[in-house]
């Protein structure tokens, strides 16, 4: 529309031999600025900043140190999971099984390192007598319990991602169906393994990962921050990263161009599972328990934050820094709605609406970019 208007103005100016009036130039300038803003890859950051500043006079407590600390501590575990989702969205896939991966690895990791279990609760669990006993897991009390358990969690997360990737890439199954079934299967498996019970008595060093802080900055900031930088470098500075975008933009073209589509697709799902496991480490550590229902309500937040950041549901477009901004905005939104003392139902309605708007905005941006 703007292009047509610009052409008409140009023709009119040429035919009349007069230049455009100053007000028209000003309008055009504002229009260009808005367009630049909308198309800017930092749009969500600007939006977060503006949202924060607009709310500040109405809810000053949003800027208290405790509240900013809450925003920061809530942001990083979610970001870890969302980074994994970014990889699969870029290749035009989706991973709905991330939250069930979180639940399963949380239970498995806790089973490895717990130091005590109540037989009344666990004696009917299938792992009882094999991996679990009244004295806890196989590494109960060992200094290696925490690092080995975390390694096992990451390994299991990556393995489930590999399984998903194989089903999508080798068997050509729809990602939506594969990961939806995965979500059901792995969350049921998590519940089955411990008969719905939470595993507590985890090592203090593990709990510290989720609850520890340096000043008001949680440990998760440093760990996820480094992982985010590495993920961004992988996408922007490596051949593998370019292959992800190529597959998401046009799989057939990527295949013809020599991209190892199957291996790269599997890799995207492996990364998704791996980052879901990283998120699980933080979430289960902050609750000091391995929980078979961990992350059960988190899927909307993960996909919502990633999409709000600007990663396209159609594939071929996305950056880790966008996901960082998306998670920031999403956590800020959630926090502010709580501070406004809105009921749970309104919070969910608003969050759902924002995600829908973000998806619609993605379509508009794509069209604008295509027209540029």
């Amino acid at each position, binding site marked *: 529309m703007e292009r047509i208007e610009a052409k008409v103005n140009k023709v009119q100016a040429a035919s009349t031999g007069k230049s455009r009036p100053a007000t028209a130039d000003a309008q055009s300038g504002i229009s260009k600025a808005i367009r*630049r803003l909308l198309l*800017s890859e*930092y749009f969500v*950051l*600007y939006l*977060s*900043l503006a949202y*924060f500043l607009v709310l500040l006079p109405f809810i000053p*407590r949003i*800027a*208290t*140190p*405790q*509240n*900013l*600390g*809450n925003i920061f*501590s*809530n942001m990083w575990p979610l970001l870890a999971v969302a980074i994994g989702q970014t990889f699969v969205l870029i290749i035009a896939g989706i991973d709905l099984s991330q939250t069930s991966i979180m639940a399963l690895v949380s239970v498995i990791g806790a089973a490895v390192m717990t130091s005590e279990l109540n037989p*009344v*609760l666990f004696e009917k669990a299938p792992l009882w007598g094999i991996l679990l006993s009244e004295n806890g897991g196989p590494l109960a009390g060992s200094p290696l319990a925490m690092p080995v358990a975390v390694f096992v969690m990451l390994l299991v997360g990556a393995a489930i991602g590999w399984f998903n990737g194989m089903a999508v890439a080798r068997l050509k199954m729809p990602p939506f169906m594969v990961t939806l079934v995965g979500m059901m299967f792995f969350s049921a498996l998590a519940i089955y393994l411990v*008969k*719905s*019970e*939470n595993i*507590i008595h985890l090592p203090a060093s593990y709990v510290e990962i989720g609850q520890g802080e340096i*000043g*008001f900055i949680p440990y998760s900031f440093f760990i996820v921050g480094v992982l985010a930088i590495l993920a961004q470098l992988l996408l922007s500075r490596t051949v593998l990263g370019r292959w992800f975008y190529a597959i998401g933009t046009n799989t057939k073209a990527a295949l013809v161009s020599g991209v190892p589509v199957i291996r790269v697709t599997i890799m995207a799902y492996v990364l998704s599972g791996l980052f879901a496991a990283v998120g699980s480490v933080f*979430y289960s550590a*902050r*609750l*000091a*328990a391995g*929980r078979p*229902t*961990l*992350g*059960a*309500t*988190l899927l909307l937040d993960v996909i919502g934050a990633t999409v709000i950041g600007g990663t396209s549901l159609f594939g071929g477009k996305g950056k880790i820094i966008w996901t960082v901004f998306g998670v920031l905005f999403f956590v800020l939104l959630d*926090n502010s709605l*709580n*501070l406004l*003392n809105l*009921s*749970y139902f309104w919070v969910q309605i608003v969050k759902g609406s924002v995600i829908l708007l973000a998806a619609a905005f993605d379509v508009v941006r794509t069209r604008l970019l295509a027209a540029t």
Partner: protein
Amino acid sequence: MKRLSAVLSLLLLVAFTAACAAPAAAPAAENEGTASTAADADARTICFAYQDLETEFWVAGHKAIVETLTGLGINVIERNANEDANKQLEQVKDCIAQSVDGIIIIPQDGESAVTIVGEANKADIPIGVFNRPPADDSNPALVIVADNEVIAQQAVEYMAEEAKTLGRKVTPLIMVGDLGDPNAVGRRQGFYNVIEANPDLFNEVIEVPTKWDGALALSNLEAAMQANPEVDFLFTSSDFMYPMIRSVLEPLNKWQVAGDENHVILGGLDGDSRACQLMRDGYVDATGVQDLFFEADTIMNAMLEAIDAGETQPNNWMDDPGFALTQANWEERAEDMWGCKLFAETGESLERSFGE
């Protein structure tokens, strides 16, 4: 230019954050000042964070707490975690950031309650736990909890006495709650105390897990009754599951009033209005009663006393002794059950007419 403006924005955000965080060196003094001012102005704020309101017990408890507190002029901030322990932790931290004067929680389970209580302790804000106690008492809190084991045992003892009148062994079934919830553990234990005390009366126990979930309870009970149609003694760990029990027993012609040869000896625990109605009509033989209104009053009074006394980490586990309402003591105790009070408020009579 784009990159420059973006970096500037980011720097602005970081600078703002740092500026806000700077006074954190003296947060205690600042918070005390705020709390004191609020108290002086008699504008106390209490955060009430609950896991969900899926049963009548929680709905009635929620109503009692919110209405009483607001009636006292106290500002109540409500948070519903939709059965997500992590969400509840974040919500309580949000409340702490708002410098509330006190926190009352209905936790998702005993394990997450320990962590949440710990967060409140760190912030020096008194916290009360309503009805569902923490898994351990490592972190100080005000806790009100019914003696679930004793109450369940009293109800099942009456059911066992009824079973003895049949002159044969009976097949017991228990619908177990979420065993991550100490209440469910206590109720299960109370049931087994009676079973173990009467080895000649009972066949092997059939356990039906429910996780406090209606749909799961229904499907698992259906399966259990298909496999064991001889069940004639059923204890539900919560009264909210009676509709599921009825929908399973009715097609089997086992949903009958006491005295009928197909009557399943039936009991539960909570004391809600549905249990009251079913006892009045003769379908249920006994129900363990948690004194909901006593529990709500007790936790609120303890919380307000702690706030007034300036206690930041009050530690007191308080018991609701509860009781068992049975067909034998119905005339004397029915009006003491909170569910019967709610039932009577709807205009319903508590007069029994079955078996006439």
